[in-house]
C-alpha cells in the first residue's frame, strides 16, 4: 500500500530537496507564486476545505473549517506553525523540517496568505535547535528569492516569517500555552473561550496548525482537492506520516495513506520490518502518549481517525509505539505518567497533584516492586478524579496510560501486590483485551 509519490516526505523521491535550488527546480514555491497571482484567499481556504485536510497535531480537526472561524475584518492576524513536537513517540515534524523544510515554509506562506496574516511564527520546541537553524536558513533563502517580505512578487501581499524557539516544555504544544510562550511568558494554557481564532497571539485573531498539516498545503493547492482525496479514506483523506518506534526492526517515519492496516505498518519489510528478535507484540500506543493502549488483538485496525477511535483509542499525532512482552504494563504506565508529571505545568490542581500521586504509587509498584492492598483502588480513585476535571488536555491525557494498564493488565498489578504479601481481590473480572473506550474530550480546536 506504499506511495508512489510522497507528499510531506518528498525527500524520499527527491533526496536533495532540502536544498533551495533543488526544491525550486522541482516546482517548489510555484503553488505559492501562482496563488498570489491567480487565487484569492477565500479560494485557497475552499480548496483546503474540499480536500478535507485534517490537523495532524492530534485532534484531526478539519483545517479549512478552522480557518473559517476567523472573525471577518479583524487585523492583524497571525499564523503560528506548531512545531513543539514533544509527545513521546512523535518525531515526524522533526524529519519534515530537517529534510523538506522549503515545502513546510511554502505551506506556512500559502496558509498565511489564505488567512490574510502578515506575520507567521514557527514555534519550535527548544530542543530542535539544529532544526531551527535549518529553518532559518530556508527562510533566508525564501526572503532572498522574494517569496517573503514586502509586496511579494508584486502582489501587494506582505509576509514576515520567524522561527521562535521554546525552551523545554511539552505543554507549549497546547495552542494557547504556545501563544503565552511566544509572548515571552511561562507556557500555561489560557482559558477558552476566547478561542485563538478570535483572540490569540497578542489578543489578535490567530490560526495554529501543525507542521505536517501545513506541509500538505502546497501540494493540495497545486494539484487540487480531488487529487488529494485520491489518497486515504473518505473521512481521513490524504496521507499520514506515521512515526513508528519501539521494538520493531525498522523504527522510523513512514508516510502512508490513511487507512493502512496497523499490521502492515509494523510487519511490512518496507516499513516496520516486524518485531525485533521475533518477540510478540504486547502493547501498541497508536497516537502518542495520550492515546489509550491497544494490544495484539487490534493489529488489523486500519490507521485512520475513525477506525482507531472505533478500536477504542485515537490516532492522535500518528506516533505508533509498539512494545513487546518484555514490557510490564505497570512500568509502562509509570514511565508514561512520569512524563506527564514532569510536564504538568502546575496551573490546575488535578493534573499537578494527581500526576504526582499517580507516579508515587506507580513508582512503588513498578520500580520498587511492591504494593499496598489498596493501591489499585487508589490509582483508580486518582485517575477518575482527574478525568474530565483538568484545565487542559495534558492532565486528561495522563489518565490514559494508567487507565489502559489497569483495564488491560490488572493481573500484573495484582501480582506485584500479591508478591508483597497481600491478598488481592480481582479488580474488574478479567477485562484483559477489552480496549478502553476513548473519551472524546478534544475541544473545538483540539
Amino acid at each position: 500500500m506504499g506511495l508512489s509519490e510522497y507528499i510531506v516526505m518528498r525527500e524520499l523521491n527527491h533526496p536533495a530537496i532540502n536544498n533551495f535550488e533543488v526544491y525550486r527546480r522541482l516546482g517548489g514555491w510555484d503553488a505559492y507564486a501562482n496563488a498570489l497571482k491567480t487565487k484569492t484567499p477565500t479560494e485557497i481556504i475552499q480548496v483546503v476545505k474540499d480536500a478535507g485536510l485534517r490537523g495532524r497535531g492530534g485532534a484531526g480537526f478539519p483545517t479549512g473549517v478552522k480557518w473559517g472561524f476567523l472573525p471577518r475584518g479583524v487585523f492583524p492576524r497571525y499564523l503560528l506553525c506548531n512545531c513543539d513536537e514533544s509527545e513521546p513517540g512523535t518525531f515526524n515534524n522533526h524529519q519534515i523540517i530537517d529534510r523538506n523544510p522549503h515545502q513546510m515554509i511554502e505551506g506556512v506562506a500559502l496558509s498565511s496568505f489564505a488567512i490574510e496574516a502578515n506575520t507567521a511564527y514557527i514555534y519550535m520546541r527548544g530542543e530542535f535547535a539544529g532544526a531551527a537553524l535549518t529553518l532559518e536558513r530556508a527562510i533566508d533563502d525564501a526572503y532572498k528569492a522574494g517569496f517573503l517580505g514586502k509586496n511579494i512578487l508584486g502582489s501587494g501581499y506582505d509576509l514576515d516569517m520567524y522561527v521562535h524557539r521554546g525552551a523545554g516544555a511539552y505543554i507549549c504544544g497546547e495552542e494557547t500555552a504556545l501563544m503565552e510562550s511566544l509572548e515571552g511568558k511561562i507556557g500555561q494554557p489560557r482559558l477558552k473561550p476566547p478561542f485563538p481564532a478570535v483572540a490569540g497571539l497578542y489578543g489578535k485573531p490567530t490560526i495554529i496548525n501543525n507542521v505536517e498539516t501545513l506541509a500538505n498545503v502546497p501540494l493540495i493547492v497545486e494539484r487540487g482537492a480531488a487529487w488529494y482525496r485520491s489518497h486515504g479514506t473518505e473521512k481521513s483523506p490524504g496521507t499520514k506520516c506515521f512515526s513508528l518506534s519501539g521494538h520493531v526492526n525498522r523504527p522510523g517515519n513512514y508516510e502512508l495513506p490513511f487507512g493502512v492496516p496497523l499490521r502492515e505498518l509494523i510487519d511490512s519489510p518496507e516499513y516496520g520490518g516486524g518485531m525485533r528478535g521475533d518477540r510478540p507484540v504486547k502493547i501498541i500506543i497508536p497516537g502518542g502518549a495520550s492515546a489509550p493502549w491497544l494490544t495484539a488483538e487490534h493489529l488489523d485496525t486500519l490507521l485512520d481517525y475513525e477506525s482507531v477511535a472505533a478500536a477504542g483509542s485515537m490516532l492522535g499525532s500518528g506516533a505508533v509505539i509498539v512494545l513487546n512482552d518484555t514490557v510490564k504494563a505497570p512500568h509502562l504506565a509509570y514511565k508514561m505518567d512520569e512524563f506527564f508529571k514532569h510536564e504538568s505545568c502546575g496551573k490546575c490542581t488535578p493534573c499537578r497533584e494527581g500526576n504526582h500521586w499517580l507516579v508515587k504509587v506507580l513508582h512503588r509498584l513498578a520500580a520498587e516492586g511492591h504494593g499496598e492492598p489498596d493501591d489499585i483502588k487508589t490509582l483508580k480513585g486518582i485517575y477518575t478524579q482527574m478525568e474530565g476535571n483538568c484545565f487542559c488536555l495534558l492532565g486528561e491525557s495522563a489518565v490514559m496510560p494508567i487507565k489502559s494498564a489497569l483495564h488491560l493488565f490488572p493481573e500484573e498489578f495484582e501480582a506485584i501486590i500479591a508478591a508483597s504479601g497481600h491478598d488481592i481481590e480481582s479488580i474488574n473480572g478479567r477485562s484483559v483485551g477489552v480496549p478502553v473506550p476513548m473519551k472524546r474530550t478534544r475541544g473545538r480546536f483540539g
Partner: protein
Amino acid sequence: MPTVTITVDGVTFPVPSGTTVVDAARVGGVDIPVFCYHPKLKPVGMCRMCLVEIGTPRIDPATRQPLLDPEGKPIIVMMPKLQTGCTTPVSQGMVIKTATAKAKFAQKGVLEFLLTSHPLDCPVCDKGGECPLQNLTMEWGPETSRFDYDDKVHFEKPIPLGDLILLDRERCILCSRCVRFQDDLAGDPVLGCDNRGRKWMIISKSEPPFDSKFSGNTTDICPVGALTSADFRFKARVWELSSKPVVCTLCPVGCNMTHDMRHDKLMRVMARENSAVNEIWLCDKGRYGHRFVEHETRLTTPLIRKGDRLVEATWDEALRLVADKLAAIQSAHGGQAIAGLAAPRLSNEDLYAFQKLFREQLESGNLDHTIGSVSDGDYDDMGAMLGVGQGTNLEQLGAGTTVLVVGADPEEEAPLYVLRLRAMAQRGAKLIVAGLRSTKLDHAGGTVLRYKVGGELAFARALLRAVLDEAGTRRLAVKTNGLEQLRKSILDLSLASLAEAAGVSAATIQAAAKTFLEAENGIIIYGAEARGAGPALVETLGALAALAGKAGKANSGLIALLSGGNSRGALDLGLRPDARPGYVPVAQRALGAREIWGAAKEGRVKALWIAGLDPAASLPVARTAIEAAEFVVVQDLFLTETAQLADVVLPAASGVERDGTYTNAERRVQRSRQAQPAVGQSRPDWQIVQGVARLLVEQSVKRVGAAKSATNGGKATKGANTAVAVAVAELVAWDFLTPAEVAAEIAERVPGYQGITHQSLAATGTSGTWGRQINEAVFYDGTSYTNTEGVGLQLPSLIEGSKTSLNLVVRPAAKPSEERPLLLLALPLAYDGDLLLRGSLLERQVPQPYLALSRADAERQNIKAGDSVRIESAAGQLTVAVRVVKELPAGVVAVPANLPGFSLAGVQTGPRTWVSLVKLLA
C-alpha cells in the same frame, strides 16, 4: 441591568446577566466552593474547585426558541463534562447542579488533591479559623488521608517575600490570587511563580523584594495561610479577636478598616468593606502603620516645665496653668497674641472644638492646620468648591468617565487611588495622567502626558482653550464670576502658543480636552506637584471642570490630594486664618502659620498652642519662634521636638482611642469608633480643649463678677447677676459629653455639614457584597470585614445647590528662575518621617535622604548614583547623595519632602524652588 433566569439545585431565580455561575448561585443562597476565584479578580478556572454540572436549553435553530418536552418544559442539554462555575457566565434558562454525586465527587477530589501537598498545621497557622481550606475540609473532606507518602511538599518555611510578607510554601495551594492581585489590580507585577508542576512556587524578584504598597492585601485574599504578615504572624488566634471599626487617618483616602484587638492590644489591621472608598483593600501604610498607638514612647501624663525640665503633673494642674496663662496673655495683649495650630489628622470634633476655643473663648483667629512650610502650599478651597458632587461613587464608574490626573503621585500621596483608578480604567474609564515626572499611575492603562518644566499652567490653559473651542458658549450649571473676562483672556491666547509653552502637542491637548468634555462624568485629581505650582494652576483646573460642565454633580468635579488624613475636615472646619467653619470668610484675615512664626519671633504673638504638629522638627523659623514665645502648649502623642520646647505638654489620645468623624478627599464624612481605651492618662483632643475652655469660662465669669463687684463696691447687684448668667450660658456650650454631641453642634452650625451626625452616619448602611458574612467562611473568607458602621455621607460641593459662585480670576503665570537651571520638587513619600509610622515595620522602608536626578542630567554632569552633590538655591544649600532615576525628566531634581532629621526648608524659596547642582568630589 438585564437579568436572566437560572435554576440552581432546583430553585429558579433571576440574576444579572453576565454574572458567573459561582456568583449567581450565591445570589440564590447556594455556595459553590472556590479557591482561585475571587470576585475582584478575573476568573482563571485553575484550581478546579468549583466544578458543577451545567446545562442549557436546547434551542430550535429555526425559531431560536427553546425546544419543549411533552410536558412543556424546556429540554435541557447537560454538558458532558463538569464545568468550572467561576468561569462560566450564566445564560437564560441555564440549569446548574452543584450537589449531584458527580459534582461532589469532583469537588472532593480536588480538595483531596490539594491536601496531598498541604501540611496539617492548622493549630499553628495564622489563617486557622478563617481558612476556606480548613473549613471545607472540616465540612466534607476525607477523614483519613489516602496519600500515604511522607512527602507533602517540604520547603524551608517561612520565607520572607519582603519586609512585610512571609511565604509558607508548604501551605500554598497555587491559586495565584496574590500574583493576579499584584499584576492586575495593584499594577506592581512583583510576584510570580518559579519552576512548574508540583514544584511551582511563589517568588518575588523585585528589588527590594515584594516592592509594592499593597502587599498586605495578598494576605487577605490568600485562601490559606501561605501568605502571612510579619506584623501579625503567631500573635493571636483569630477567634480571640474583636474587630473594632475605625477609619484610617494616614492619608486623605480615609479607608475603612478594623483594628482587631485581643483584650486591649492591637493585633492586626484588616480592611472593612466600603465600595465608595476602599472597596475591600488597604494600602500597607494603613495596614501596618498603626503601631504608633502602642508605642512605648507615647505620652501618658501631662508635663509642666520646671526650669529646663518637663515634669509630670496632674491634668488639673496642667489645664489650670494653660488656662491661667492664656487668660493672662489674652487680657494683657488681646486674643491676637495667641495662635493655635491643630494637625489635619485630628477628628472633625477635635478641630471644631479647637477653633471654637480660639474664636469664641480666646477671641483669636490665628489658626492653621499646617506648619506653614513652603511645601504646604495654599489653602485648597477648590477641592471643596468644585469637589466631586454628592453621590459620587468611583466604584461604579467605568466607560463614560474621564479622569484627568494632574501633578499627582497617588501611590505616595493617597495609595488607594492607584487601585481605584486602575480599576476604573479596566472598566473602561479614560485616564489622562499628566505630570512633570513619571509615576506608577502611568502604567494604569491611560494616556500619559508629560508637560515641560514650568509648562503646567500653560498646559492647563491649553486644555481650557481647547474646551472653549469645542464647547463654545454653552450655559454652565454652576454660577460663576468673571467668566467673560476669563473667556476673553484665554481666547486671546492661541492654542498653538499654549501648547508650545506646555511642551505638549496641540493635537494631543485637543484630544485630551475632547475626551474630558465628551465624557458623561469628568473628574480632575490633583496632588502635591500641581499644588506646588501655585494657586493659578488649581484655579485653572477648576475653571476647566466648570466650563466643561464637570462640576456641581455626582461623579464629576475635583479631588484634591492634600497631605494629612483630615485636611479637608480642617479646611471645612475653619482651621485657617481667613475663614470660619464652612468656608465663611472672616472680615479681617488673622495670622496663618507662616505669619505666626514671624509674629512670635517679633513678640506680637506670645502664646502658641500646637496640637499634633511638630514644626520645630523641620522648620527652623518655627523653632526660633517657639523658643521666643512666652508660653507654649503642645498636645500630642509623643514628646516631639516641639513638645520638648513647650511649657505644658498634654498627652492626647490617638484617633483609635476615641470616637470621631473624618472628612476625606472626596468630602465623605465617615465615622470611626473607639478601638481601645486611651493610653495612660491621655485624653481625646476635644476633651483637652474643652477642659481649658471651661476653665477660661469660669475665669471670665469670675472676672466679670470681680469687675462688677469692683464697680459696685463689693455689693452684689442685679446687673452682676445678669453677667454671671451670660457666662453660665457660655459654660453650657462647653458641656459636650461625647464627640457625638460635638458633631451635633457641627451639624447645626457649619454650612454643608447639616445632618451629619453620628446617628445619621451610623445609619448609612453596609456597603458592597464581598465582605465577610456569617456562615460564608467557605466562600470568600479573609477578604474583608462587612461594614457595620455605615459607609459615610458625602458633602455636597459648595457650588451644588448653594448661592456660592465660582470666581474665575486670571492670574499671571510664575516666571522660572533665570540663573538656576533645575526645578526642585519636594517628593511626597508614603513612608516618610511621619511620627505615626513609629514602631511599625514600615520604618525600615523610610529611605535615607537622597536627591533623585534624571539620567540625562546625571550624564550631562557626569554624576553617578551614590555621588554626593550640593544643591544651591537663593535661600541656601544642601548636601545629599544622588539616585539616578528614570522617572524624572531632565531639568527636574527631586528630594523626599519629609524625612526624619532632613529638611528642605533651608533651600526652598517658594512653591517652586530653582536650584543649581554641584558635584562634590569624593
